[in-house]
């Protein structure tokens, strides 16, 4: 074995540099930010945010060249794959990351927090996400997961002197590490069953029926549970409201969109490339997660008085909607449809949820509070923001012609075309939940339009150019998906089954 190891140590695997170019560009940007801090010290503060934004935009360039070059690229013997699925999800992460940088720009500077470290960690976390989109091996999935999680733990606790932020950071950290430890235990069992860490080999082993059913079930349940934590699916959502409330609001936006999307991307890869042959195990599991998340998230959201906590529970409910098509993913002919539905929903969800957070952050610049009552009468002093917020809220609720409507429509289409009890029952639960969700989303809008401003304070909201750009990006994407879905959905029409199933 030693001889084998030595032979490996001196042989560099062939690397397709074009395929890893996005990761390299982002890494360079992260290093530049750290270097700028070391060289220019305090003077670097003024341009760090711009540098981080440019880094993320520059990362999009190799993504576009990869997309136009067409062919799938397979690296490291299949452990790292750049295909259409990887490219579109990387694009979603970069868009979310860019908007979060825009949202953070003034928040971090005005709060007098550490800036260089903040953006360095943000880019590190983003790096983990774009790695996750290509990982087709247990080891690379694990490393990508930790690379995206560890900086996020630190960013949640960024307001060092604030007891709530400390508490949120420690809660997120402990529950996150616990979830990833349980997930790792599942991965170790899976490695023992399949004798390989590659998802394609695992697919062959678990689908053949040669592995013990109980051990395979245990491994799959542990792994899905670990990622269910990341996407805050009930009953693994308990961290979300506290962490969202305690964390700096731009970080909350990052967690509720980018980090959640990364969890979904991992689940998609594991299900489609690894476990696809074991629909008998994962379909009931996903069904329970989806039904529980939608129902619990919506019912608890009804009685929230803090808008960030409300968004946390609404996020849990949205998780239920996003994951729902996977409950019928193993049905013949539905696999690819369920996959593109989930990717479409992720793209739309990223835009509309970030948009809602952008409005919350902007309005809080004036009110300094996240209580729902402080948003009363926003129309009288910030009509533009109120219209934008209503726009994002109605999109989240699924009202045509906004993006959220198309996403929900696709979910219902996939669920009902399964044509059996499980598909129909989940569709009914989803329909009931859409109505409940509309009630509290519309409740926020009603306060902003109809209520009186607290203490009659009608001073305008101080906006900044970066917040306006962020709002414009989110609104544009949300509207594009709602008005011309057939054009935009072409990008999210991807498949993973050619590789694994």
């Amino acid at each position, binding site marked *: 074995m030693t001889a084998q190891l030595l032979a490996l140590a001196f042989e560099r695997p062939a690397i397709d540099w074009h395929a890893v170019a996005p990761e390299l560009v982002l890494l360079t940007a992260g290093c530049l930010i750290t270097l700028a801090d070391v060289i220019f010290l305090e003077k670097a503060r003024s341009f760090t945010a711009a540098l981080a934004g440019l880094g993320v935009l520059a990362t999009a360039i190799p993504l576009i060249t990869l997309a136009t070059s067409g062919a799938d690229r397979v690296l490291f013997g299949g452990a790292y794959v750049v295909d259409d699925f990887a490219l579109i999800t990387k694009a979603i992460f970069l868009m979310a990351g860019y908007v979060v940088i825009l949202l953070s720009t003034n928040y971090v500077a005005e709060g007098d927090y550490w800036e260089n470290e903040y953006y360095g960690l943000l880019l590190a976390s983003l790096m983990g996400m774009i790695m996750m989109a290509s990982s087709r091996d247990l*080891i690379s999935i694990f490393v990508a997961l930790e690379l995206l999680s*560890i900086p996020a733990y630190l960013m949640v606790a960024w307001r060092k002197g604030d007891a*709530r932020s400390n*508490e949120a950071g*420690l809660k997120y950290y402990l529950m996150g590490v616990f979830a990833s430890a349980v997930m790792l235990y599942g991965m170790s069992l899976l*490695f*023992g069953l399949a004798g*390989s860490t590659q998802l394609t080999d695992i697919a062959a082993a678990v689908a053949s029926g040669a592995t013990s059913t109980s051990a395979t079930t245990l491994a799959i349940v542990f792994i899905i549970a670990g990622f269910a934590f990341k996407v805050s699916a009930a009953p693994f959502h308990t961290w979300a*409201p506290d962490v969202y409330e305690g964390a700096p609001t731009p970080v909350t936006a990052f967690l509720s969109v980018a980090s959640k999307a990364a969890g979904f991307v991992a689940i998609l890869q594991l299900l489609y490339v690894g476990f696809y042959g074991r629909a008998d195990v994962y379909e009931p599991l996903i069904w329970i997660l989806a039904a529980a998340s939608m129902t619990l998230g919506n019912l608890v959201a009804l009685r929230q008085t803090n808008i960030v906590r409300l968004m946390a529970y609404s996020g849990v409910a949205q998780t239920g909607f996003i994951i729902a098509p996977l409950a019928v993913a193993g049905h013949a002919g539905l696999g690819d449809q369920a996959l593109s539905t989930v990717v479409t929903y992720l793209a739309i969800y990223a835009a509309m949820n970030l948009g809602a957070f952008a409005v919350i952050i902007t309005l809080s610049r004036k009110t300094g509070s996240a209580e729902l009552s402080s948003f009363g009468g926003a129309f009288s002093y910030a009509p533009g923001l109120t219209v934008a917020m209503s726009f994002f809220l109605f999109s989240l609720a699924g009202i045509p012609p906004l993006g959220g409507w198309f996403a929900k429509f696709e979910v219902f289409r996939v669920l009902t075309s399964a044509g059996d009890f499980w598909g129909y029952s989940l569709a009914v639960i989803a329909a009931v939940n859409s109505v409940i969700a509309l009630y509290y989303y519309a409740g926020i809008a009603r306060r902003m339009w109809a209520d009186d401003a607290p203490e009659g304070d009608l001073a305008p909201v101080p906006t900044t150019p970066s917040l306006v750009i962020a709002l414009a990006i989110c609104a544009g994407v949300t509207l594009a998906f709602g008005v011309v879905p057939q054009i935009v959905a072409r990008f999210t029409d991807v498949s993973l089954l050619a590789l694994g199933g």
Partner: protein
Amino acid sequence: MFLNQFLLLSVALFAIGVYGVLARRNGVMVLMSIELILNAVNINLVSFAAFTENLAGEVFALFVIAVAAAEVGVGLAMIMLLYRNRRNIDLTELDLMKG
């Protein structure tokens, strides 16, 4: 080679770790319990790797050890922060936010 003995040891460690995470109130003890789970994972990986003569398991275990070190670094820093602000690390007193 008796794989079962290693697996039983690993299950025992895993169970003790999960119990520790759920029952302990002290932040550092919870961190140590999580380390127990990670070590259960490593024992699993290394014993499966030795049993099937597949190097990937040992490589995976190395990655787990390295990443766990990074995680604990962050965790201890966070517990330090909490201790500075509150003068104790009792997790049951983390109850500022509810609802």
